[in-house]
């Protein structure tokens, strides 16, 4: 088994997959804590479906670099969703559900009408569940991913205290002169970036799992914001590593294996939290 693993590690595409997987897992778990606590768990779901729709548009247009259209569209939708989220007249969850389902249907429709591929349902399945695309990453994609991940981590560390204040009590933060709107916007943009990155890894249906599971697991065991954040980052990276390695060894789908590892970690954390109390 070990020799098989070492053999696989010789291939650059396996190393790329590991690097990208770990970085995306790290970023999504950092943000996940805030998103879960702000009751934005579903924004990940909604945005990933928007990204799916954008991928459909990109493939219909035959763009070689899909990022060019997927990233701006998703960021734009993140900002729009956040706008309606803070507007009391249109319920945020309804807006997210609407955009999410709409984009999914629109994307499928587009692909169905314009697709030239003989294996349409296979294509769609791989966009939704990620399947093997993480193993076909190009060097540019890996570099882009590394660059964006580092940016996300630096921003998160620099604004950690502000993010805590805005998440814990937005009114108090605003009263203290913190521009809460700006931070919500920042969180939305970063979320959109991470989701677009993560689509390669787990596909658009399972992204929510990457965002939500580590945070919820950590919250079972730890009680302070800092320890929850650190624990969820560690858990997420570990599960991503384990998931990728297992999926290579046993030839299982990458995305689902990572999510299964996250779910297992959640069960362990629930048990730990239950024993602790």
């Amino acid at each position, binding site marked *: 088994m070990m020799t098989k693993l070492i053999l696989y590690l010789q291939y650059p595409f396996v190393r790329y997959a590991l690097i990208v997987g770990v970085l995306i897992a790290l970023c999504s778990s950092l943000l996940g804590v805030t998103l879960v606590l702000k*009751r934005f768990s579903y924004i990940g779901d909604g945005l990933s479906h928007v990204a799916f729709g954008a991928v459909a548009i990109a493939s219909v247009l035959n763009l070689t670099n899909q990022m060019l259209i997927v990233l701006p569209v998703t960021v734009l939708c993140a900002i729009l969703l956040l706008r309606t989220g803070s507007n009391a007249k249109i319920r945020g969850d309804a807006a997210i559900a609407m955009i999410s389902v709409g984009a999914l249907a629109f994307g499928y429709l587009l692909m169905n009408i314009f697709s030239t591929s003989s294996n349409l349902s296979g294509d769609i399945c791989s966009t939704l569940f990620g399947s093997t695309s993480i193993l076909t990453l190009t060097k540019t994609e890996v570099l882009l991913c590394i660059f964006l991940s580092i940016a996300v981590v630096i921003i998160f560390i620099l604004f950690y*205290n502000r993010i805590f204040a805005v998440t*814990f009590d937005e*009114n*108090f933060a605003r*009263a203290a*002169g913190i521009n809460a709107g700006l931070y919500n916007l920042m969180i939305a943009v970063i979320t959109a970036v991470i989701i677009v990155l993560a689509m390669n890894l787990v596909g658009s249906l399972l992204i929510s799992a990457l965002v939500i599971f580590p945070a919820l697991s950590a919250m079972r065991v730890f*009680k*302070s914001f800092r320890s929850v954040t650190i624990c969820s980052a560690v858990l997420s990276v570990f599960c991503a590593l384990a998931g990728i390695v297992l999926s290579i060894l046993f030839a299982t789908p990458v995305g689902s294996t990572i999510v299964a590892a996250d779910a297992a970690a959640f069960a362990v954390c629930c048990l730990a939290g239950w024993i602790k109390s």
Partner: protein
Amino acid sequence: MPLITVSGLSLGYDSNAIVKDLNFTVNEGDYLCVVGENGSGKTTLMKTLLSLQEPLAGKITAGEGLKKNEIGYLPQQTDVQRDFPASVREIVLSGCQGRNGSRPFYSKKDKELAEENMRLLGIEGISGKCYRELSGGQQQRVLLARALCATRRILLLDEPAAGLDPVVTAEMYDLIRDLNKNGVTVIMVSHDMDAALKYASHILHIGDVIFFGTKDEYLNSDAGRWAAV
């Protein structure tokens, strides 16, 4: 010049005025109690004073060099916070953010200030504990310590004794009185008319009748006589 001057203020949401033409002043060292029935607009007044929402009409002027972010605020609790993983120290420290400007991290001075305020409110022993596992009275103290980190000049308290038992309520009020004696200006929303009349120097009554004046004036007014019955 007073710390806060409110003139011709109308409050409400979406251009529906809840309270119209409010006029009052708060001087340094005052203890103003805001009383009124449920839904009369007390919380809305607090939010408007904090510029969390726009006044429909009228003006709020801050004097004596008081800056908008020099107001400490104790909100009427929201349940979003109830399951939040956060330690007492983290929450109290977050009160220091307003004075931080664009500095990303807390300085040593901030940390000392947080420790000092936790000592003042007798919660230094539980500083590592999780907020959601504290009793209601302890939670209120934590939020009060956070407000004190934001400022030592003026505190806006929205029902600080809500949900507390009589003993803890009395402690809370004593604590606020001591802070007031040490020069902190207090604006407090309260349903507890006895406490309001016992501790406050000024009363603002909002609702069908609007009244503002000192406690003695209030007791002799129509609104006050009705309330005292």
